[in-house]
C-alpha cells in the first residue's frame, strides 16, 4: 500500500496506476456480474428472441422448425376453439379473484391491526394457508368441496342447503378456485398489516378531532396512506393471475379423475368443459403434451405482450389514485 502511495506522487505513474485501478474495478464488476450475464443471456435473452422466431414456425422438437409465416397467429385468433375460452377464464380470474383476494387481505389486516389480544395467534392462523404447498392446498380443497362426501356439502346439507357441484360443475369450478385463492391470501395480508400499522397515529388523531368516525377514518386516512402498497398487491396479483397454472391443473386432474400421467390426462385439462382451462394451462397443453412448440411460442408472445401492457397500464395510471408520501420512491 505504502509503495503505491509513494508512486502516486509522480504524475505519469499516477495516471497509469489510475487506469490500472479502473481496469481492476471493471474486472471486479465483471466477476461479480458473471452469473447474471450468463444466466440472463441463456435463460432470458436467448429464449425471448428464440420464442419470437419459433412463433413463426411449425416445430415439434423432432424435425427442424419449418417457417410458416403468420399461420400460428392466424390459427390462434381465428380457428382455435380453445384460445378464447382460455383467455376468458384468465380474465375472469384477474377481474374477480384478484380483487377479492386484495379485499380480503386488506379486511383481515385492518381487523388485525385493531385487535388487542391474540394478534400473534390470529396472524399465524391467517398466514398458514398461504404456506401450504399449492398442490397440497388444491388437493385439500377438491376433497373439502367434493359433492359426494365433502365436509362442505355435508354441512350445507345439514343446514338444509343443497350444495353445488363445485369443482365438477362448469359454473362453480372457477368460484371454487377463487375460494382457494382467498384462503391463501396470507402473504398479501402480512404486507398490508405492516403498512396499516405504519400509518402515523397523528393522522388518525387529527381526523378524529375533525369528527371523523371509524369508516371515514378508514376511507380518508388508512386507504390513501397505504395506497402504494395496495397498488403493489394488485400488480403482483394480476401478474400471478396471468400465470395461474398449478391450482387449475391439479384441480382439473384430481376432480376429473384421470388415470395416470398420460396423454389422457392432457385431455382432462380444463375439466369440466374447459371451465378451468386458463391461458397458461392451454399453453402447456399445446407445447408440452401435443408438442406444437411453434404454436405454443405464438401463445407465449401474446402472453408477453399482454403482461407488458398490463404492468405498464397499472403503473402508468396509478398516479391518479395512489398517494405517495412526500417524494419517497
Amino acid at each position, binding site marked *: 500500500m505504502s509503495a503505491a502511495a509513494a508512486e502516486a506522487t509522480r504524475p505519469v505513474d499516477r495516471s497509469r496506476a489510475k487506469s490500472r485501478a479502473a481496469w481492476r*474495478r471493471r474486472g*471486479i*464488476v465483471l466477476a*461479480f*456480474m458473471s*452469473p*447474471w450475464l450468463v*444466466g*440472463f443471456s*441463456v*435463460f*432470458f435473452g436467448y*429464449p*425471448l428472441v*428464440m420464442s419470437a422466431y419459433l412463433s413463426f414456425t411449425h416445430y415439434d*422438437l423432432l424435425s427442424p422448425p419449418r417457417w410458416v409465416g403468420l399461420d400460428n397467429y392466424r390459427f390462434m385468433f381465428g380457428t382455435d376453439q380453445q384460445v378464447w375460452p382460455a383467455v376468458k377464464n384468465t380474465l375472469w380470474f384477474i377481474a374477480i379473484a384478484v380483487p377479492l383476494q386484495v379485499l380480503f387481505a386488506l379486511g*383481515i389486516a385492518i*381487523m388485525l391491526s385493531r385487535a388487542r*389480544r391474540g394478534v400473534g395467534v*390470529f396472524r399465524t*392462523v391467517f*398466514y*398458514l394457508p398461504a*404456506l*401450504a*404447498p*399449492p*398442490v*397440497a392446498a388444491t*388437493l*385439500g380443497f377438491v*376433497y*373439502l368441496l367434493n359433492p359426494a*362426501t365433502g*365436509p362442505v356439502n*355435508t354441512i350445507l346439507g345439514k343446514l338444509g342447503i343443497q350444495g353445488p357441484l363445485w369443482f365438477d360443475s362448469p359454473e362453480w369450478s372457477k368460484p371454487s378456485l377463487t375460494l382457494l385463492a382467498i384462503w391463501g391470501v396470507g402473504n398479501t395480508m*402480512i*404486507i398490508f398489516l*405492516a*403498512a396499516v*400499522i*405504519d400509518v402515523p*397515529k397523528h393522522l388518525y388523531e387529527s381526523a378524529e378531532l375533525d369528527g371523523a368516525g371509524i369508516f371515514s377514518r378508514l376511507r380518508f386516512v388508512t386507504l390513501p396512506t397505504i395506497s402504494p*402498497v395496495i397498488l403493489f398487491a394488485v400488480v403482483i396479483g394480476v*401478474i400471478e393471475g396471468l*400465470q395461474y*397454472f*398449478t391450482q387449475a391443473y391439479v384441480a382439473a*386432474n384430481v376432480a376429473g379423475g384421470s388415470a395416470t*400421467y398420460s396423454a389422457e390426462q392432457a385431455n382432462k385439462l380444463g375439466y369440466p368443459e374447459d371451465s378451468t382451462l386458463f391461458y*397458461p394451462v392451454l399453453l*402447456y397443453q399445446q*407445447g*408440452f403434451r401435443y408438442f406444437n412448440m411453434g404454436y405454443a411460442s405464438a401463445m*407465449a*408472445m401474446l*402472453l*408477453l405482450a399482454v403482461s*407488458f401492457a398490463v*404492468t405498464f397500464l397499472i403503473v402508468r395510471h396509478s398516479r391518479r389514485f395512489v398517494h405517495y408520501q412526500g417524494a419517497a420512491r
Partner: protein
Amino acid sequence: MSTSTQAAPVAAPLVRRRPPAAVRRRRFLIAVANHSLLIATAVIFIAPFIFIVLTSLMTSQQALSPKLWPDPFAWHNFTDVFSKAPMWRYAFNTLLYAGLGTLGLLVSSIPVAYALARLRWRGANVVFLITLIAMMLPPQVTIVPVYVLWAKLHLVGTIWPLVFPNWLGDAFSIFLLRQFFLTIPEEYLDAARVDGCGELRILTTVVCRLAKPAIAAVALFSFLFCFNDFFGPLLYTGENSSHWTLSVGLSQFRSLYQVQWNLTMAATLIVMAPVILLFFLAQRAFVEGVTLTGVKG
C-alpha cells in the same frame, strides 16, 4: 418501525383526557364487533386444516361416508402412504432440488446484488431494469426455447433443468438483496476499504453479516419456492417418475394408486408438514421477509 408505533399509545394518555362514557362505550362495542368478526374469519380459515386432519385419520370405509369425525382413528394411514407411494424418493428429490437450488441461488445472486447496489459502474441501472422486467414476466413466456435447450442436452426427465438455472442468479432474489444492500451505511464499507479489504472480502464479511435477515429471507423463499414448485417439476420430470418431487407425486397420488380420500389427505398432510414445521422454526424470518418484499417493493 414497530417500536415507534408501540410507544405512542403509552405516551398519549398523559396528554389526552379520558374520553366521555358514550365514546368509551362505542369504542368497546366496535372492539367487540371487531374481535367477533376476526374469530369467525379465523375459524373459517383454520377449518380446512381440521377437516383434512380428521379425514386423514378415517378408515377407507368411513371416507366413503359423509361422516365428519373419524371412528375409529386410523393412525396407520400415515404409514400406509409410505408403503403405497415412494414418498421417501419424492422427498429426496425435493430436498435435492430445494437444497442445491437455494445454495446456488445464494452463491450467484449475492455478488450480483452487491455489484448492482454498491459498485459504481455504467449500465448498472439498465441491468437492474432488465432484472425487474425478468421478474415481472410470466415464466411461460420463455419456457418453450428453454425446454428445447434441455431436451437437446438430454436432461429432460431429470431435476437438473430445475437446479441449474438457480446457480446463475434469480431475478427476484437479486432485486430483494439489492434493495437491502442499499440500506447499509457507506461508512461500514469505507472503513473496511481503509483496512485494506478487497470488494470480495467486504462482501463476504461486512455485507453478508449486516444483511443476514435479508439473506435468510431470500434463502427461505427460495427453499419454499422449490419445495412448492409444480410447473417446473411437472414439465421436466413428468415422464420419469423416479425423479418426481413431492408436489408432482402428490398430484398423481390419488389417481395412480386408486385410493380413497383418507390416504390422499394423509399424503397431503405429509407434504404440508415440513413447510409448516419450517414456519414455526423460523417465524420471525418469515414475517420480516414477507414485509420486506412489500415495503421495499
